[in-house]
C-alpha cells in the first residue's frame, strides 16, 4: 500500500451541533481538496432507556437522525460535539482556511479549529483481537483510530466515496 503524509484537523464548536448543521458542514467540507476521512464524535445517544423504571422503552432522540452526506445516508449515533478530519499534508493550509470560512458562515457561536494528531496511529491489541476472534474479517489500516475498541467497524464506519 502506498504511504501518504496526512494529519488531523479538529473542529470543536462551542455548542453541540444539530443534525441539520452537521449535514451542512460535512457536505461543505467534503467538497474541499485532500480530505481523507471524517470522525464525527460526541456524546452517544441510546436507542432504548438503559436504567430505571422505564428500562427498555425506546428513546426516539431527535438528534439521532439519518443525514445525507453526498447522496449517501448516514445514521448519526451521537450528539455531535467535534469533527476530526484527516487531511493530506499538502492541502492542509488551504483546508484550514476554507474550513474556518465555512464554519463562520454556518455557525452563530464560537468554535476552535486545531491542527495535530487526534486519532490513534497504530493498531492496538484490541484491533488485532477483533480479527483473531473473528469479530471482524479483515483489518483495514486506513480505519485505525476511527473505530472505538468496543465497536464493530461495519456498524460505525460508512464509506462515502
Amino acid at each position: 500500500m502506498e504511504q501518504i503524509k496526512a494529519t488531523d484537523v479538529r473542529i470543536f464548536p462551542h455548542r453541540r451541533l444539530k443534525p441539520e448543521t452537521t449535514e451542512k458542514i460535512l457536505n461543505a467540507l467534503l467538497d474541499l481538496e485532500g480530505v481523507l476521512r471524517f470522525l464525527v464524535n460526541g456524546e452517544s445517544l441510546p436507542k432504548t432507556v438503559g436504567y430505571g423504571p422505564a428500562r427498555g422503552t425506546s428513546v426516539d432522540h431527535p438528534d439521532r437522525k439519518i443525514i445525507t452526506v453526498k447522496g449517501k445516508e448516514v445514521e448519526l449515533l451521537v450528539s455531535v460535539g467535534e469533527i476530526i478530519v484527516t487531511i493530506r499534508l499538502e492541502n492542509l493550509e488551504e483546508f484550514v482556511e476554507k474550513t474556518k470560512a465555512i464554519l463562520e458562515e454556518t455557525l452563530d457561536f464560537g468554535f476552535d479549529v486545531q491542527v495535530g494528531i487526534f486519532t490513534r496511529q497504530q493498531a492496538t491489541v484490541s484491533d488485532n483481537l477483533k480479527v483473531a476472534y473473528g469479530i471482524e474479517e479483515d483489518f483495514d489500516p486506513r480505519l485505525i483510530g476511527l473505530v472505538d475498541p468496543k465497536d464493530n467497524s461495519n456498524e460505525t464506519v460508512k464509506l462515502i466515496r
Partner: protein
Amino acid sequence: MDPEFEMKKIRSINDEDIVRVLGHRNPGESYKSVHPPLDEMDFDEDMMKELVEPIPGAKEGGRTRYIQFTDSVYNAPAHPYDRARTYMSRFRGVDTGTLSGRQVIEIRELDLEKISKELLETEFFDPAKCGLRGATVHGHSLRLDENGLMFDALQRYVYNEETGRVSYVKDQVGRPLDTPVDVGEPLDEDHLKEITTIYRSDNVSMREDKEALEAVLTIHQTRTDGGFGLDVFKDDLKAKLGDDK
C-alpha cells in the same frame, strides 16, 4: 437559601401536569400509603412524638417519593450544594442527597408535590439549564446544544423553535407522556449569568486565574502542614518523644 426570602414566581404549571412529570402516580389517583394514619396507630409513650408535629404526608402515612434535578454548569440558577442547603432551610421532613451532577429530594408524596410546584414555578428552575431527571442524569457538564438546552440522552424535554418554549414529552424517568407539559420559555442568558449561584469563569487558563491559584495553594499548604503535623500536633509529638520537659 434564606427561608424568609420569597422566590419570584415566573411561570405556572398545573398541579396535574406536575404529577404527570413526576411519574409516581396517575393524576386523580389516590396516594398509596405504607402505614395507617398516625392518629389510628398505637404508640408507646414518647416525648419526642408529642413535641414534633408530623408533616401532612407523614400524618396520612403516605409513601416517600422523590424529585431529582440536574443543573448545567453553564449558569443554571441553582446547583447541587446550593439546593441541598436551600431544601434543608426551607422545607420540613426532607431527605436530600447531593451528587456531583444531580440533586435528589425525598419526602412523603403529598408534600413532594407541593415542594415540586414551588421549585418548578419559581426562578429556582430554568427549563433549558435545569432538567428533571429520575434516571440517566448525565449532561450537566456538557456543552449546550444550538438552542441552549442541556444535553439529555433521553430527551425528556424538547425546544420548540417556532414558539421558543420548552415542553416535557417524557416523565422523570423517560416514560412518554400522553400530552406534552409546557414549562415555558428558557430564561435570558444574561439574566442567568446574574442570578446563577455557580462559581466559574470561562476560558481563563489556570495560571492566569489568581483567585483559583490562591485557593489551590492554600489547600496544598494546609494539607502539607497537616500531614506533617506541623503546629497541629507539636505538643503531642514532643510528649511522645519525651521532649516536653
